[in-house]
């Protein structure tokens, strides 16, 4: 009996001018339904590559991904991606960006009125309904990312893949979006894989934190279970010793991992895909 999402023995090699570059090696991970899992590691360790393989945007050289009993072999809306730079189509309004996704997922099955209502509902979910007629260049970075999340959620994905979604935002905006994401996740009980390099973000949001070793040939180093009760409040957590212990463990791993990585690979690994 497999898990809801199972990544097993995944490795990937990229052809480069200096021969093949092995980015990932033997990545194993099981995610339960409704679980929130963060992948954390230094930049260039290949955590985004893992996400892209689950999304189907990259094909692994070996190993595979099974989601809900089906092998992943191409991208699809059941694995909606929230991109780091939001990836909203700049020529469509906020509403039309979400509607494009809704139409392509529910096009044949639901009425036009239902689809518009569904798109609007998800904009309301991320508190962006007021800006539905604005163009992406007219709204702030945090708002764009909210719309990106609305677009992904509106696809009703089996798993929501988030690729450093808040990495480009200022600290205050990031905190607001993290809180919104926690609220939404509590309501919809989505299965989420979040790529991040922010330790606080990982501890605050996750049920489990997957610590990735440094590339080349990066793999899962350690998995931490975050046993903090939900709903979580960032202010209360700041005083919670368990929170700090978890934070310390992640930091220690990353710090030790980096030294380990530097000793092993003379040249720092480049960000692969």
């Amino acid at each position, binding site marked *: 009996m497999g898990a809801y999402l199972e990544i097993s023995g995944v490795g990937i090699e990229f052809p480069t001018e200096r021969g093949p570059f092995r980015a990932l090696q033997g990545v194993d991970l099981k995610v339960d339904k409704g679980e929130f899992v963060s992948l954390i590691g230094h930049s260039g360790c290949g955590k985004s590559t893992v996400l892209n393989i689950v999304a*189907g*945007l990259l094909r692994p050289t070996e190993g595979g991904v099974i989601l809900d009993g089906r092998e992943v072999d191409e991208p*699809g809306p059941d694995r909606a*991606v929230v991109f780091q730079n939001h*990836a909203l*189509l*700049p*020529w469509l309004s906020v509403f039309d960006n979400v509607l494009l996704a809704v139409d392509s997922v529910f096009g044949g099955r639901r009425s036009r009125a239902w689809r518009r209502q569904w798109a609007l509902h998800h904009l309301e979910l991320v508190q962006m309904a007021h800006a539905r007629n604005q163009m992406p*260049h007219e709204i702030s970075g945090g708002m764009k990312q909210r719309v990106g999340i609305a677009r992904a959620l509106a696809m009703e994905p089996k798993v929501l893949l988030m690729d450093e979604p808040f990495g480009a935002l200022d600290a205050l905006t990031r905190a607001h979006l993290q809180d919104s994401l926690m609220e939404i996740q509590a309501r919809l009980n989505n299965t989420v894989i979040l790529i991040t390099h922010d330790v606080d973000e990982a501890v605050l949001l996750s049920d489990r934190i997957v610590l990735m070793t440094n590339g080349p040939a990066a793999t899962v180093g350690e998995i931490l279970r975050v046993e903090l009760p939900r709903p979580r409040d960032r202010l209360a957590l700041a005083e919670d010793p368990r929170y700090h212990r978890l934070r310390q463990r992640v930091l220690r791993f990353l710090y030790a991992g980096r030294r380990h990585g530097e000793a092993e690979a003379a040249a720092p690994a480049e960000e692969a895909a």
Partner: protein
Amino acid sequence: MDSAFPVAPATASRRLAALGSELARRLRRLAPPAAGLLVFALLWQGASATIDTSLGRFPGPLQVWEQAGNLWAEHRRERRREADFYRRQEARNAARQAVDPDYVPRLRPYTGKPTFVDQIGRSLLTVAFGFAVATLVALPLGVLCGLSETAYRALNPLIQVFKPVSPLAWLPLVTLVVSAVYTSADPLFEKAFLNSAFTVALCCLWPTVINTAVGVAGVDRDLANVGRVLRLSPLTRLRRIVLPAAVPMVFTGLRLSLATGWMVLIAAEMLAQNPGLGKFIWDEFQNGSSDSLARILVAVLAIGLIGLGLDRGMLALQRFASWDKGAAVR
């Protein structure tokens, strides 16, 4: 007055001051280009006095201005003559019909020579036709090259070889081919018109092809991935993601193409004898009167101003049609 409206004079003077500073700001903005033009005109007037050509003294700005007025007056005169001609013809026909009710009037078109303004219109029509033909060919070709690496590699050598060919090299070929292929008894277009237009099309094709290809091939990877995640069909992906993403580059290509086309047109018209600005210059050159050089300079300035106008028009169209409102003004 003052005691009744103690505030009024103060606001009025403040408003006047604001108006004054606004005026000063505009003057400062206008001063450099105005000074540039003035210095140029003075240098031109000074230099022209020292150049003696076989057609007399090289014209200065004043003579050119005078000839511009003459050309306009000639245009007005010609239009009056045309109107008179039709009025006389109608009167004559009416008179004959009054005598003989069975008479079917023959309408003769006016056959005066085209004026400078007519020739500008003709040139604009020719460049529009050539540019339209080029765009209809270039856009699909560019999209194809952008989508398919194979198509790009197949077509790139052709593009690179034909791109630098001068319009003067194309024209004889175009002329012969048009003569051979376009043999209608009642031709819709004159051959000279088609020769010029197709030469323009051949020369202004390339910037649109190249820029469209670059725009289509260079779609942001994340946006392309959005299309993949949504499993859009290839056609929907093209329509909803690839083409809109390429629009700014397409417009850059179109602007370059139109500018090239307008430049090429004058040379093509000279040789093809299409009655536009190119033929106007050629005829004045052959005519060799003492006014010819000034009239040619009027045409040169008209060509420059119309070229500027066409470019600004395309830019306005781009601003209107493209989602990328930050399009560069250059």
